[in-house]
């Protein structure tokens, strides 16, 4: 082959053959891996197709949306999908092949089908939701419930975001004067760094979890776009596992991201989150006031009850002696009545006595005396045996004393061999006063003798 081509000629040949081979427009499914808008308004993309493992790329090509189409396609796509054209999105685009002698091969995008992307995103979301449910973690953060007060907040947001500023304004300037303690853990809230940024922030907060009552994830502006950054398995999973409640205000009206779904409380905007927290505080302060009233009422009831008991006792006490007295009186009256009844009975009996008494009264007296005598006789009957017994007992005692006395009689003593000594007619019990030559008289049972004292010897 001797013919030589210039580079330009070669490029033209390639271009022509491509145009012949790919004459029309094609619908192509691809994933955006890069998007850039330049200053002239053109949009430059890189489209890829990944292998089945969803990691390695098996096809890659440049694509362009000229500014004329881009202005229209951009808003059309965003309105329907709620997403910007961004990396990671799968798109269905209508293209034509273009080959430029300077820039080489590229695809010119003429149209885009947002419905395809919506379907893709929905499928991805559903997949994440199903996975979290299958793992049994979907509602774990919700199950934590909210603490009694939400006062110390770890905030994940980007410092410059309008949403963060709005949130802080609503919180700090709340009309009830509640004090909040906040610390911002910065993270990108859109773009491909969102996932890593939020995971890092949550990781840092978990190191200080005891300091915080809740985590707040907020994103600025109420923009509808870029929601799908929060349809992210890793973010959602970390939220489900977070030890303190997570509140989200990611800023969207139409739909909830998976991160919202798994959060303890999900609200539409950052200001809604701030208002919710203030309302929560207000509700809890009201609860405190209710408890105070409850305590007051209960205490009042108890004190009142005790007072009533005392008062009742006070009322019951004074009449008691009167009641007691009247009971005694009644008893006395009863006894009197019985006596009278008994007397009447006696009178009645008396009136029935035979003998034809002309006057009742002597009969009554007679009956009375008769009854008394009868009663004495009855008593005597009962008493007699008892008296005999008593007398016998007394007699035995006297006999015993008599026997003892008999033993002590002088005759009995003399009989037992004792003698009695007299001097000058007086009994001598000792030898005191006796002197040799004294005459003493000794009495025996059967007679007495006189004798002279020869000598004495006192023992």
């Amino acid at each position, binding site marked *: 082959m001797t013919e030589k081509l210039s580079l330009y000629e070669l490029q033209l040949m390639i271009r022509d053959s491509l145009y012949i081979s790919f004459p029309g427009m094609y619908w192509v499914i691809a994933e955006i891996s890069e998007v850039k808008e330049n200053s002239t308004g053109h949009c430059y993309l890189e489209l890829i197709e990944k292998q089945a493992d969803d990691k390695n790329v098996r096809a890659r090509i440049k694509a362009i949306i000229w500014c004329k189409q881009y202005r229209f396609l951009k808003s059309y796509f965003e309105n329907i999908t709620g997403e910007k054209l961004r990396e990671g999105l799968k798109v269905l685009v209508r293209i034509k092949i273009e080959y430029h002698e300077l820039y080489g091969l590229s695809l010119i995008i003429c149209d885009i089908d947002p419905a395809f992307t919506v379907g893709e995103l929905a499928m991805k979301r559903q997949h994440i939701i199903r996975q979290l449910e299958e793992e049994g973690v979907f509602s774990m953060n919700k199950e934590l419930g909210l603490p009694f007060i939400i006062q110390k907040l770890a905030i994940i947001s980007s410092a410059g975001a309008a949403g963060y500023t709005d949130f802080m304004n609503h919180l700090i300037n709340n009309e009830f004067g509640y*004090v909040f303690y906040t610390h911002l853990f910065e993270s990108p809230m859109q773009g491909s760094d969102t996932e890593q940024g939020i995971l890092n922030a949550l990781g840092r907060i978990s190191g200080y979890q005891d300091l915080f009552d809740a985590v707040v994830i907020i994103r600025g502006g109420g923009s509808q776009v870029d929601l799908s950054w929060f349809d992210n398995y890793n973010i959602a999973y970390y939220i489900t596992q977070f030890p303190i409640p997570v509140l989200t205000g990611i800023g969207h009206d139409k739909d909830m991201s998976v991160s919202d779904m798994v959060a303890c409380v999900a609200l539409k905007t950052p200001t809604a989150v701030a208002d919710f927290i203030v309302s929560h505080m207000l509700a809890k302060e009201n609860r*405190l006031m209710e408890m105070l009233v409850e305590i007051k009422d209960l205490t009042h009831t108890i004190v009142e009850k005790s007072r009533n008991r005392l008062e009742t006792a006070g009322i019951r006490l004074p009449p008691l002696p009167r009641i007691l007295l009247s009971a005694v009186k009644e008893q006395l009256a009863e006894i009197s009545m019985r006596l009278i009844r008994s007397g009447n009975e006696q009178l009645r009996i008396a009136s029935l006595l035979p003998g034809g008494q002309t006057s009742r009264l002597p009969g009554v007296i007679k009956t009375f005396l008769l009854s008394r005598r009868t009663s004495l006789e009855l008593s005597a009957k009962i008493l007699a045996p008892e008296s005999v017994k008593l007398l016998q007992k007394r007699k035995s005692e006297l006999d015993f004393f008599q026997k003892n006395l008999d033993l002590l009689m002088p005759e009995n003593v003399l009989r037992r061999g004792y003698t009695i000594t007299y001097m000058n007619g007086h009994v001598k019990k000792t030898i005191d006063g006796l002197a040799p030559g004294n005459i003493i008289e000794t009495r025996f049972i059967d007679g007495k003798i006189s004798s002279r004292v020869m000598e004495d010897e006192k023992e």
Partner: protein
Amino acid sequence: MNKKEFSFKEAVSRIEEIIKNIESGDLDIDKLSDEVKTATELIRQCQKKLKTTEDEINSIFRDLS
């Protein structure tokens, strides 16, 4: 050593316990006054906590890396 941080949760639990005790009627009237005093003081502290800034907490939050 920092003083033990006031715990809202514990305070509320204690208040609820006191209310329950009073409600049950088991509470000795001699202890009523002390318990009511404790509960109202805890409520006062809780209310104060909602609306008063604590420098200690502020400084902890400032120092967070």
